[in-house]
């Protein structure tokens, strides 16, 4: 791992942190004062989450165990860690019920909701920049695609916190979160279908055939990427003589939607960007990798900064520290269990969980129905 890329990530975090320090005290203090006046907070009670008197003192053991599960997901299924972290913050720590206890009208409900969102993003965003730099160093982007994606991503991740921070209450947030988890479950289910598995098999066979006849096939005379035509609705380029085309509006809209969704829910969005970039433009791995890592990173820094600067959302640092420990332990266990549990079964386990959590949150958030614990 490059020391320089670590430095870049740390520097970006510093910029966000330095600026948020002065902003966050005001919003939390106002919310505490308002809730105290409304008789919802006893100012003499022991301080818990975020230093709010009488708030739940989070149980480290539960938190750590949940983070181990998040880390395990990270190192085996590959993504969705942000989603699982969010489930933990809302349910396992009991912050959801605590925030709801303040009712819709008090600021404290929204302060805690925003804090949950930002905490999720810290967990993923801390490291999204890690590989951005390395991959950026290695290759070049297809310029129109890179620019389009960056515009969508930045606009999406600034607009959503600005429009929703302090406006979305916990009930709605949980509802949307549930819908998103359900969607993920479906997406992952497709990945385990015979059709998707067939492509894996075909890839293996293609690789075998290629290795057996390295010298066969006509070599391309053209090199690199050449944009052959560019209009508002169609960009055609040749990649080593093979023609590809995409609609430039799709990455703008896609980048915006993914960044907006990630920012609203407090997740990374990288797991959506990678298939999106591969499908849209058929880009090779190392270009997709660099572009998606950078887009996630830019989106996260933007989003965290706008929550903290525009709205002064407080964060419980020790909680993130404890969760990082759990993630490390989980990612240690992951590679060892994947020897005994095939990837496809891991994904199926995740699908069951996604449907359970997604249904529960959607019904609870939008209709107030609790069908299972």
């Amino acid at each position, binding site marked *: 791992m490059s*020391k320089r890329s670590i430095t870049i990530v740390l520097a970006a975090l510093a910029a966000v942190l330095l600026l948020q320090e002065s902003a966050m005290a005001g919003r939390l203090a106002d919310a505490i004062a308002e809730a105290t006046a409304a008789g919802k907070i006893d100012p003499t009670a022991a301080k818990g989450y975020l230093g709010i008197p009488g708030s739940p003192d989070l149980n*480290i053991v539960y938190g750590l165990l949940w983070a181990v599960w998040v880390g395990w997901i990270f190192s085996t299924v590959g993504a969705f860690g942000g989603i699982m972290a969010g489930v933990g913050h809302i349910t396992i720590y009991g912050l959801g019920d605590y925030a709801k206890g303040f009712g819709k009208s008090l600021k404290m409900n929204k302060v805690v909701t925003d804090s949950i969102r930002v905490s999720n993003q810290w967990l993923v965003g801390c490291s999204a920049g890690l590989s951005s730099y390395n991959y950026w160093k290695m290759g070049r982007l297809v310029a129109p695609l890179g620019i389009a994606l960056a515009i969508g991503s930045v606009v999406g991740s600034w607009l959503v916190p600005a429009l929703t921070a302090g406006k979305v209450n916990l009930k709605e947030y949980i509802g949307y979160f549930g819908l998103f988890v359900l969607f993920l479950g479906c997406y992952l289910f497709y990945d385990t279908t015979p059709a998707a598995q067939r492509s894996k098999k075909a890839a293996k066979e293609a690789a075998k055939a290629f290795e057996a006849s390295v010298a066969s096939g006509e070599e391309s005379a053209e090199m690199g990427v050449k944009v052959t035509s560019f209009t508002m609705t169609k960009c055609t380029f040749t990649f080593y*003589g*093979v023609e590809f085309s995409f609609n430039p509006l799709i990455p703008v809209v896609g980048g915006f939607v993914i960044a907006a969704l990630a920012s609203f829910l407090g997740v990374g969005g990288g797991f959506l960007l990678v298939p999106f970039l591969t499908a849209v433009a058929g880009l090779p*791995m190392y270009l997709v990798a660099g572009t998606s890592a950078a887009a996630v990173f830019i989106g996260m820094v933007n989003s965290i900064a706008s929550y903290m600067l525009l709205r002064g959302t407080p964060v419980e640092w020790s909680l993130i520290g404890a969760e990082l420990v759990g993630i*490390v332990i989980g990612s240690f266990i992951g590679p060892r269990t994947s020897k005994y549990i095939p990837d496809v079964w891991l994904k199926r386990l995740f699908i069951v969980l996604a449907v359970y959590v997604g249904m529960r949150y959607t019904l609870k958030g939008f209709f107030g129905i609790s069908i299972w614990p």
Partner: protein
Amino acid sequence: MTDLSAISAFLDPYLIWAFRAPVHPVAAFGLGLVVVALMATVLGELCMAAAYFGNKESFAKSNREMVRNNNMSLRMLVRKNKEGYKLLNKEANEYFGKNFFSRIALFASSLFPAFFVMGWIDLRYGDIEFMLPWLGKVGPGFFFVPTYIAVRIAFAKAQKYLPVFKTIRRKVRENETTDEELLSFDDLNKEVQQGQAALKNNDSRVPDAS
């Protein structure tokens, strides 16, 4: 000890001594920040090394498969095999995802002590407000973050001279070495040029049939 404030209370005796140097209070605060930042850095680096070597085969494998699939997909493209390119590119992306997220966890293992220190600073010094020109009131965390980053950069530069850390660096480099490097456009262009040159040589050796 099952709540968050208990973590900070537990850490207190290990961290507070650094702030009690018998010098001017502001200097003692600055010195304390440097010491706790250094402690967080050293502990983080050691944990990152443990996490890396504990999963060294897994890191090497995902890296190897990512590189192999990516390189083969590009070579297929050069031979105008679009379908093969797409299939292997998808595989390469999947391995990239695994690699990417396992590196995230690795980075987390080096960063967590800093978050605990931040939490402790909030508990110990959270009520103190510093007045700064242009920025107004800031908390103590405002000073810890840049200190931590400066210490971490300095430590990274000093690593090659420090026992233990010197060895860690060398062993990581050995494990990361693979048979093939991730192909970039430049490498691929060179391969194509070499292929074309070889083809020309073969053509020039074929006798004219006319």
